[in-house]
């Protein structure tokens, strides 16, 4: 597996993605192009399809029609694709019965990360969890679990980040840390697609806002990075 160089800039393209669950259509022919290095805030009411879109991007869900592609790097196989993508989901994706350290060790090995021990230690320290490294995740508070969930997503230094309401459960200190981490990743050229509710500091870092409703893109502030347009995207003004 090609080691990540840390400087790749990768984009995502959704082509006519459709996903149905029985007779319920979660995504209707969604086409979206995310440029390398963009920070896209995904907005919309509950049930709009934000989570489904993120899961399609993560290759967790196979769409009924259309597909998702990676640009900027030949990701021919699903495995190569997944090696460049990190996800923070609704659930923590952590094993409660293992320690924080064991969780990160496991995922690091699974992703083929070199120097598992030092990478784990570094991430735990960054998340402020170094003292609790050998504690079972079961004993962690909600905020601590979310922090661990976030660093879990970063263990393999992904170039594309998919975030599903990542700030939920974070304590104020955690939010500050998370915003700083995201800013650093953004400066580093990571592409970020984050589903958030309004009033989330994460939005301040966004360069683009896309609003989904009932499985369709209803507004897109474009790559201009214009704050007013983003706020308009927040209010759901149709373009």
């Amino acid at each position: 597996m090609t080691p990540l160089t840390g400087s790749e800039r990768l984009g995502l393209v959704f082509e006519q993605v459709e996903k149905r669950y029985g007779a319920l259509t979660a995504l209707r022919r969604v086409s979206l192009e995310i440029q390398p290095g963009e920070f896209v805030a995904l907005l919309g009411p509950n049930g709009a399809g934000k989570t489904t879109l993120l899961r399609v991007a993560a290759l967790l869900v196979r769409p009924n029609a259309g597909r998702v592609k990676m640009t900027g790097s030949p990701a021919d196989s699903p495995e190569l694709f997944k090696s460049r993508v990190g996800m923070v989901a609704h659930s923590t994706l952590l094993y409660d019965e293992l320690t924080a350290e064991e969780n990160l060790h496991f995922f690091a090995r699974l992703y083929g990360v070199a120097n598992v021990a030092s990478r784990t230690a570094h991430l735990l320290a960054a998340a402020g969890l170094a003292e609790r490294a050998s504690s079972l995740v079961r004993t962690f508070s909600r905020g601590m679990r979310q922090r661990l969930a976030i660093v879990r997503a970063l263990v393999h230094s992904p170039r594309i980040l998919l975030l599903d309401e990542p700030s939920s459960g974070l304590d104020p200190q955690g939010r500050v840390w998370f915003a700083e981490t995201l800013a650093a990743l953004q400066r580093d050229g990571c592409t970020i697609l984050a589903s958030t509710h309004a009033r989330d500091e994460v939005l301040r870092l966004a360069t683009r806002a896309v609003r989904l409703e009932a499985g369709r893109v209803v507004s897109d502030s474009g790559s201009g990075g214009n704050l007013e347009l983003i706020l308009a995207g927040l209010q759901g003004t149709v373009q």
Partner: protein
Amino acid sequence: MKNSIWQSLVVGALMAVAGYAALFIAPDEKTMHVIQRIFYFHAPAGMVALLAFTIVFIANIAYLINRQPRWDWLAVSGAEVGIAFNSVVLITGPIWAKPAWGVWWAWDARLTSTLVLWLLYISFLLLRDLMADPDRRAVFSAVYGIFLFLDVPLVYFSIRIWRTQHPQPVILGGQNSGLDPTMRKVFWFCWLAMTGVMAILIHQRYKLEQARHEFEELRLRAEQLSAEEPGISPPAGAMRT
């Protein structure tokens, strides 16, 4: 609708002729006399059941390849009809065995295998019953169904070896060796008639499943529309299947 009626009439006629043949045309068997005639329904039913389960297997594979719901409908239809015919075998077997050997059940190879087959496909239907989401149900029951069918030859083979190692009464299927020509004709005619019944039953069950599916789609679509446009609501008292 008209087609169904014609089909049913034709198959009904075939079955009537088959019944008559089994009861009156086939020559009397020398040891068991009238009781033996049950064989003309017992054995073909077993073969038809296997045929139905083979259809399930093909439908399972087809569904996994192209995900079209109609293969799932075919799979559940084949399984239910297969179990029905299998039940015929399991009921007629003991009815024959009691006068013939004095016991209802003798654990002979063929009947025991049929029993296991019955259990296998009951599990298939049970699995489907316990899964609500239609797409997931279709995928996972298809995977399970494939494993089941792969198991079938192993079941027959292992049980046959098992029974030959443990001596027990004369085997049911021994009839087939040296079957009188008239008997053979009646046998195959009954098989043909029963295969016709199987085809019709599967077809009807398939159409029922198709109708259910379409109804669900319409109902959910109506709900979605009413959610998007207030003022339109689904028909009051909408049926839940």
